[in-house]
């Protein structure tokens, strides 16, 4: 454990992991309950098309990726209204559109030689000090956001129409929420990797949903599970010489399976 912490990149990986482990499940729970589990994967593909557009038009690609992601998120919000009962359909549509645009732009430009994917796939081991500041800033922003709007986000997730009639400014909160999500996903996936961001938003939440006895518990438990996966994942991946991102994700999946299995056993007896 100590050996591991000698190195700056390992310290930063752990720190970034711990922050991401709070941030992802905390927004993930609202996303999952609103059937937007796959928004991370969807926005990452849109970001890809943003990078391509940036390269084609000569604009700084990451900025373009951000713009595209936020626009896509707003698009998802619009489409969600058209498919009230099928929010995940909106995600799927935007995902397809994202890849479609990327592919067409690449073929249109004809000489894009930037490994586009490289723009998206961060890695928790290559977090820089400047990234740390960004991730910490995002972390504080999100935690504040969720803390301040906790009861409103909860009500909207449970019953959007009801929330509106309770006087909650649903439209504005939704807009704000989705924009923050898009920014968080786009920026943090570049730092710690899209795999990690989108998985940590979903799998710990799924595990906590199996056992949680209240919404608050579900939120807290998912953070605990995420942190467990992150910390043990970084340690295990170090000693077994495996990719850290993948190991963390697989650990969270294993925790999920254990929780499901444990619950099954409990119910039988």
């Amino acid at each position, binding site marked *: 454990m100590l050996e591991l912490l000698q190195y700056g990149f390992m310290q930063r990986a752990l720190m970034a992991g711990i922050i991401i482990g709070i941030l992802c499940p905390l927004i993930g729970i609202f996303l999952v309950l609103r059937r937007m589990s796959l928004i991370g994967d969807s926005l990452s593909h849109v970001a890809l098309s943003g990078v391509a557009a940036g390269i084609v038009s000569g604009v700084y690609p990451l900025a373009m990726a951000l713009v595209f992601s936020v626009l896509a998120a707003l698009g998802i919000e619009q489409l969600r209204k058209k498919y009230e009962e099928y929010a995940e359909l909106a995600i799927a549509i935007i995902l397809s559109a994202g890849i479609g645009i990327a592919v067409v732009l690449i073929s249109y430009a004809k000489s894009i030689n930037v490994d586009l994917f490289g723009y998206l796939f961060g890695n928790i081991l290559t977090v820089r000090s400047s990234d740390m500041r960004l991730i910490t800033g995002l972390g504080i922003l999100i935690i504040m956001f969720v803390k301040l*709007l906790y009861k*409103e986000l909860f*009500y909207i997730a449970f019953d959007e129409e*009801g929330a509106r*009639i309770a*006087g*909650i400014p649903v439209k504005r909160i939704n807009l704000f929420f989705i924009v923050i999500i898009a920014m968080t996903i786009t920026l943090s996936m570049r730092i710690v990797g899209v795999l990690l961001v989108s998985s940590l938003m979903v799998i710990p939440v799924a595990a906590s949903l199996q056992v949680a*006895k209240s*919404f608050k518990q*579900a939120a807290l438990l998912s953070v605990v599970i995420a942190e467990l996966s992150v910390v043990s994942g970084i340690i295990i991946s170090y000693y077994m010489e495996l990719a850290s991102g993948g190991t963390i994700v697989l650990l969270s999946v294993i925790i999920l399976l254990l929780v499901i299995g444990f619950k099954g056993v409990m119910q039988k007896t």
Partner: protein
Amino acid sequence: MKKLVSVKDVCFGYENELVLKNVNLDIYEGDYLGIVGPNGSGKSTLIKIMLNILKPSKGSIEMFGKNIDDFRDWGKIGYVRQKATSFNTGFPATVEEIVAANLFSRIGIFKPITRSHREMVYKALEIVEMEKFNRKLIGNLSGGQQQKVFIARALVNSPEILFLDEPTVGIDLDSQREFYGLMEKLNKEMHITIVMVSHDIGVITEKVNRFACMGDSRLICHTNNSHLEITDILKEVYGDKMNLLIHRH
């Protein structure tokens, strides 16, 4: 008497056919308004239009004297929609959490739920006799228990006007009786205005002090309570055979 809601010349149709044709309706402070009518006659549609969930194609709604689009004071309104229990049963929320969420207009944005709010929740749950279930997951309750929770959610705010779309659906007799008793008390003692859609005409005719009957895309009648009159009107709407089922308690 203050006019709380005013439906003015409202028309509405989902696709082509009009469901509401030039409906006019005023609701005054202290009213206990029962809305009846056959299935598909537009009762729920009318409620939704009053609450700005649907927009009328013609006409306008005034709520507490303001045009509904400019109305902000939603804490004054309680609503139990039809099929309230038709939510996502996998949602991991306790009864308490659900009821507390409706305290929004009391608490205000950005602020947390405090102990005193939790006591209000507890009181609302007591009213529907669900206080023992406060920490249960809403999805793990029986259908009738869920309905009671949604009634508590509408009451927690101490609203000035309650819109209830078939609130007693799936609720057992004893609880129904308590519920109607409570409504009477809220209305008579606390001067809360109540708008209730129900098929339970027997009870409705007994309890309400005003009465609206929908049919044929229109508000057919709209009278103050007078049993004789109502029976005649109901016969007109539902047909002659109707008589049999009207009973008073």
